[in-house]
């Protein structure tokens, strides 16, 4: 029997797979022709985007996927925002009759929430998991990105996310 252990796998996650709460979001063409985006209309609000990390898991220990980092591509248009902050949540599913539980996972980001992540610009945010772990079949990850738009006439385009992981099977 063979064996796969690949530390360089990546999974594209399109903007229409993400979960948006607060704000008016529509599917539009991206700023660059032939790209796609989810566009948030202008409003002084805090919007929350949850990015489902759709990579394989496994019921055997130390197999399946180990999430190492997530990159998030977005654009802030019109003016600088107040802040853009990621939180990585690991959801452990409940048994029938029981609620799920959630644990925040330690991570670092390459941008600073209230400065470099919030400037009027194209952005690639890199969220690196401090201690990657193999994902059990009863677990999944959500990257929760909170965007505090502020009073400026800002809009947001979300283009994509890419999850980087090790696969072992």
């Amino acid at each position, binding site marked *: *029997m*063979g*064996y*796969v252990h690949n530390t360089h796998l990546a999974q594209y996650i399109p903007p*229409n*797979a*993400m*979960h*948006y*709460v607060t704000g008016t979001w529509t599917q539009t063409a991206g700023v660059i022709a032939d790209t796609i985006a989810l566009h948030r209309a202008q409003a002084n609000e805090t919007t*929350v985007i*949850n990015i*489902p*990390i*759709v*990579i*394989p*898991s*496994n*019921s*055997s220990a130390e*197999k*399946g996927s180990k999430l190492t980092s997530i990159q998030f591509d977005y654009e802030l248009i019109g003016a600088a925002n107040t802040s853009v902050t990621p*939180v990585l*949540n690991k*959801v452990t*599913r*409940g*048994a*029938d*009759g*029981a*609620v*799920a*539980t*959630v644990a*925040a996972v330690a991570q670092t980001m390459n941008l600073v929430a209230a400065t470099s992540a919030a400037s009027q610009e194209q952005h690639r945010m890199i969220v690196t998991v401090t201690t990657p772990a193999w994902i059990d*079949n*009863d677990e*999944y990850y*959500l990257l*929760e990105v909170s965007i505090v738009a502020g009073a400026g006439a800002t809009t947001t385009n979300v283009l994509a996310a890419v999850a980087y992981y090790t696969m072992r*099977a």
Partner: protein
Amino acid sequence: MGYVHNVHMSQYIPPTAMHCVTGTYTNVAGQVIDTVCVHRAANAATGVVNIPIILPSSTTGQQGAMLNSIEVDYELLVAVAVSVTAVLNKVTRGADTAVASVAVPTITQDLAAGVAAVVQDQHKMTVTVTTPAWTDDDEYYLLEMSFECGAAVTIDVLAAVANYTLRV
């Protein structure tokens, strides 16, 4: 060249990938903080949620993914439902100018449709494929969940997980 045959693979399918008809569905935060779901407002009708089973397939016989079971996490709020029933559809794509065709593989669901599956509570329904088969590149699966509701019940669908064998 190596060879992988792993019978313990699983794939998370988020609610944003699901196809929801009949009723008013919105993306909202889940009942547990920092979870997400698609929420169906109260509506005395049968809401249908199709869950696309997003697994690899293969043009080579007996390779790719073999779907073994699917788990669906949902919550019934406010009141009990009338029934919650799972049907697994295997869609064979049509050639150009031809329609797709649909077959219904035999499955079992662990929660009884009009009893355990309808309680006002958190649910994890496990749907087991009776005779798993390798998925051809011209095929895909949809798990069709029918929520027959009275006037009061609302629904949160949190996630699905497809359990499969991977052979590549």
